[in-house]
């Protein structure tokens, strides 16, 4: 994900099928749903916190209350166009699957808040840059459009209809407008080459029932195809960017940046499971790096960065390059202004997504390069505070070095700043010289780092940092009240009410009158397993969900009258901002650790002593004061999130009606006993239920699979149990 690519939601949807090793009854369904939890995360990880401080000049993005009309698409029309387009050599069925996924997936990108919907200026700017690289015949093509994505990762992707998506994380660190243009031209090339559709259709074979458990050769073949298409997109991208007048030499800067990330990931063990496995095997044989490296290269969907750089160098050297190529064509000042905003936005996203260490790392780097920006100091302090809050042991660990495989527990990153800023050009731009001096190390641990930046914040009078400092010292009453009083005495502060209540120890008592208990209801996923692969029935879900939800409303009004059902899809159209606030509140109560995923949080909330599924008691409002405001404004007592998956193994259909087969009758008693023990061997449905209750300060995560066909009654019963069980645990 760190390289430029056509990586998009549908590609990911395919990847999930790798986990589906067997049919539903024999396999832990959690593995199957693991991908879908990524989808949930995908929906969640899209909310912004609001501007913390007016003094800080934080112009953070705010979601519009309603989705602007230009971001609402005609799904059926899009589906019809894509499904009717002939692709030679592929079955109509597969094209329809592709069309279904793309048309619904595209709309989801906007309604889920994954894409910026109210940052017109930056979106216009990106489109101007793209337009500059387009050939004249395509300049007025309305299909081709760049959208800005709320994701801190270094990535961009294209989808089948010419919509390009550019991550804010990449924009924040791209070297200049030329670098930006090269990425956009690369993605546009994927659209021109029809790579998205072809790659999807070619990849389907990998996940058929027959191949999914033994598909290494197919995966290698597909990865090879993907690498070829990436190389083609590179070539065309360079040509387009150069024709647009940009200096493609800066493409190398992009690649170098990706290499930095790649190296960082290697250093911090954030590798794929496959590579780690290979590494474990090869370690015994003594040729660790060679095998793991070669396997990683073979499985990679992108060409090796060294090859890409050498290819670009060759192209630069061989082509008769016209003179007058530029770094900036559209507007240099605008680029710089937007990039500065983007950096703050990236930190905001990381903090809100609870990726504290990444936030610490990036805000620290941004601070080193620009120590005058108060935003970076604020985010640095706040992310350290939150990281230490959820993992108190971190306090005495070496600052940022704990992310690396080989590190001294007590030694901070200041000893080896090159680990996080390997680029010597960037390193030379560090402005806070005190921190480069290895003879006189300013701080070693997270605690010392907090103290160091706390002093800077106090010197600079950054008001919002006072609350951060007060919360950091929450165990020390005198320090806490000292900083809180100081904070409350300021005029332009974001959390005045919160601070006052915290000072008076009335955070929870002030919410005692709250009586709303809301359940956020996500769309039902109908997943089918066919001989040709997995099929997420999005159209079916759209048709069936309303009747299921109506029944659910009736059930909750009867058994849980105090609970209020809110459909997320409906809420996103009515008030996207509220929806995002709710979703993020839920995410913060339940975020969990993952060693193999980039999209999940760094932090673990599970208490190993407790039963699985139960989370330890913690103070949500201490983690993030903005949630106190959310609960107060919306009079919330409890907030829950509900997601249901229905699974149907269609490949079992023939077995169940194969009455002419003597074996069917011979095994009928065995199969009946099996049904008593394991339920249906064809159907299953799963309920995920997250909840947080302020009265008990407990969050709970309920996840159960019922091995029966999801009829409405069984759907209701599963939810009934989820709510009841949750109530019991919370109480």
């Amino acid at each position: 994900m760190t390289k430029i690519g056509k990586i998009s939601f549908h590609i990911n949807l395919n990847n999930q099928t790798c986990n589906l090793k067997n049919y539903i009854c024999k396999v832990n369904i959690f593995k199957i749903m693991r991908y879908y939890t990524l989808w949930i995360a995908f929906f969640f990880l899209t909310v912004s916190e609001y501007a913390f401080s007016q003094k800080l000049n934080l112009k953070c993005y705010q979601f519009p209350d309603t989705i602007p009309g230009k971001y609402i698409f005609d799904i059926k029309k899009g589906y019809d166009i894509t499904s009717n387009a002939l692709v030679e050599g592929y079955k109509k069925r597969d094209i329809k699957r592709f069309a279904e996924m793309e048309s619904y997936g595209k709309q989801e990108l906007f309604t889920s808040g994954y894409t910026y919907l109210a940052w017109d200026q930056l979106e216009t700017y990106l489109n101007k840059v793209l337009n500059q690289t387009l050939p004249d015949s395509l300049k007025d093509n309305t299909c081709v459009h760049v959208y800005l994505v709320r994701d801190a990762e270094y990535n961009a992707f294209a989808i089948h209809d010419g919509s390009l998506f550019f991550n804010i994380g990449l924009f924040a660190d791209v070297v200049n407008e030329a670098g930006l243009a090269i990425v956009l031209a690369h993605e546009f090339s994927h659209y021109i080459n029809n790579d998205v559709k072809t790659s999807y259709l070619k990849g389907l074979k990998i996940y058929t029932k027959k191949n999914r458990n033994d598909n290494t050769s197919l995966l290698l073949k597909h990865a090879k195809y993907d690498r070829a298409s990436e190389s083609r997109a590179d070539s065309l991208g360079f040509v387009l960017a150069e024709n647009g007048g940009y200096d493609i030499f800066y493409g190398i800067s992009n690649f170098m940046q990706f290499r930095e990330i790649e190296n960082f990931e290697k250093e911090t063990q954030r590798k794929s499971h496959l590579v780690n496995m290979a590494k474990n095997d090869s370690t015994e044989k003594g040729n660790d790096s060679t095998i793991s490296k070669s396997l990683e290269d073979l499985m990679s969907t992108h060409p090796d960065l060294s090859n890409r750089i050498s290819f670009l160098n060759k192209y630069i050297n061989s082509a008769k390059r016209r003179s007058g190529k530029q770094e900036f064509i559209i507007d240099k000042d605008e680029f710089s202004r937007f990039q500065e905003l983007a950096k703050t936005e990236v930190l905001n996203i990381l903090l809100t997504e609870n990726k504290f260490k990444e936030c610490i790392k990036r805000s620290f780097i941004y601070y080193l390069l620009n120590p005058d920006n108060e935003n970076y100091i604020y985010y640095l302090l706040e992310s350290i505070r939150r990281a230490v809050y959820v993992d108190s042991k971190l306090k005495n660990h070496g600052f940022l070095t704990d992310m690396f495989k080989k590190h001294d527990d007590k030694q901070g990153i200041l000893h080896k700043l090159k680990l996080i800023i390997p680029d010597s050009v960037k390193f030379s731009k560090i402005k806070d010289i005190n921190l480069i001096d290895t003879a006189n190390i300013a701080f070693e641990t997270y605690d010392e780092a907090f103290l160091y930046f706390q002093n800077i914040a106090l010197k600079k009078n950054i008001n919002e940092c006072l609350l951060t400092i007060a919360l950091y010292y929450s165990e020390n009453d005198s320090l806490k009240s000292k900083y809180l009083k100081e904070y409350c005495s300021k005029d332009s502060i974001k959390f005045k009410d919160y601070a006052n209540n915290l000072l008076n120890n009335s955070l929870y008592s002030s919410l005692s009158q709250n009586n709303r208990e809301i359940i956020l209801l996500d769309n039902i996923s109908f997943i089918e397993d066919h001989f040709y692969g997995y099929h997420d029935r999005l159209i079916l879900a759209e048709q069936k969900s309303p009747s299921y939800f109506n029944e659910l409303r009736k059930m909750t009004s009867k058994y849980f009258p105090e609970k209020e059902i809110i459909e997320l899809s409906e809420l996103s159209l009515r008030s996207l901002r509220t929806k995002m606030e709710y979703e993020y509140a839920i995410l913060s109560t339940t975020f969990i650790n993952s060693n193999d995923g980039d999209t999940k949080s760094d932090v673990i909330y599970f208490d190993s002593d407790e039963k699985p599924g139960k989370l330890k008691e913690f103070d949500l409002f201490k983690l993030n004061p903005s949630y106190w405001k959310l609960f107060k404004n919306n009079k919330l007592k409890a907030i829950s999130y509900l997601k249901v998956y229905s699974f149907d193994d269609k490949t079992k259909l023939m077995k169940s009606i194969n009455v002419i087969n003597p074996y069917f009758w011979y095994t009928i008693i065995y199969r009946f006993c099996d049904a008593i023990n394991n339920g249906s061997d064809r159907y299953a449905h799963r309920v995920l239920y997250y909840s947080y209750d302020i009265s008990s300060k407990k969050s709970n995560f309920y996840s159960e699979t019922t091995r029966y066909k999801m009829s409405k009654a069984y759907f209701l019963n599963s939810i009934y149990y989820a709510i009841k069980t949750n109530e019991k645990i919370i109480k």
Partner: protein
Amino acid sequence: MKKIIILVLMLILTIKTHGQIGFLGKRNVISTDIFNTFFQKKYNLNYNFCIGKGLMLKAAYSLHRYSNTIFLTKENNYYTGNNEVADVSLRGHSWELGFDFGNFLQTNMPMPIGYFMGIAFEHFSGTLNENRTYNNLYAPPTEKKYIFNNKANIFKLIYGRNSYIKYNFIIKTSVDIGMYLGSVIENDPANSEECPLMVLPLSNPKVFRIKYNSNYDKMKKVTFYVMPNISLGYIF
């Protein structure tokens, strides 16, 4: 019997119920067997009570009103035309106690819905009336009447599934594998010379003869049977 009841009570008391019990919180089921009502004239009322997510207590009462006419041809002689016809009617009642088990831990479907396996004990007592008519082409028909008191203990193993239909109605489809054990047929002293016919409460309409000892006391025969069940129930 007392020991059985004590054991049942002890079992109920020792069961720890975690979380909620029943389907949508509904733990009671009343049901009636449609299949046997139609084929056996066995009017049945079942009551089930969930005492755990995967455990259900069952109690049932049935009225047996079975009657049938059976041709029992003694001699297959075309010229004499000898045959014997028996009008059999069974009047009786039975009570039943048992447990149904579902695997909640695996399937996550709480009783009373879902696949289950059950054990049950049924005690039947009733009267068997036989009207036998002997026909012969060359003689007027002769009639004989027999009255037997019939008692039976039945142990059953049940495999089935309860499925929710709508509006709290459920349908139960199951197969009973029964062991008809230690049945007692007391002969009427007035007809002591004749062989009684036996009608199993849950048997198919064919009547078959049971061997018995010369003193007409306890039958030591064990009979196995398989009987389908289709019940309509209401949960509350």
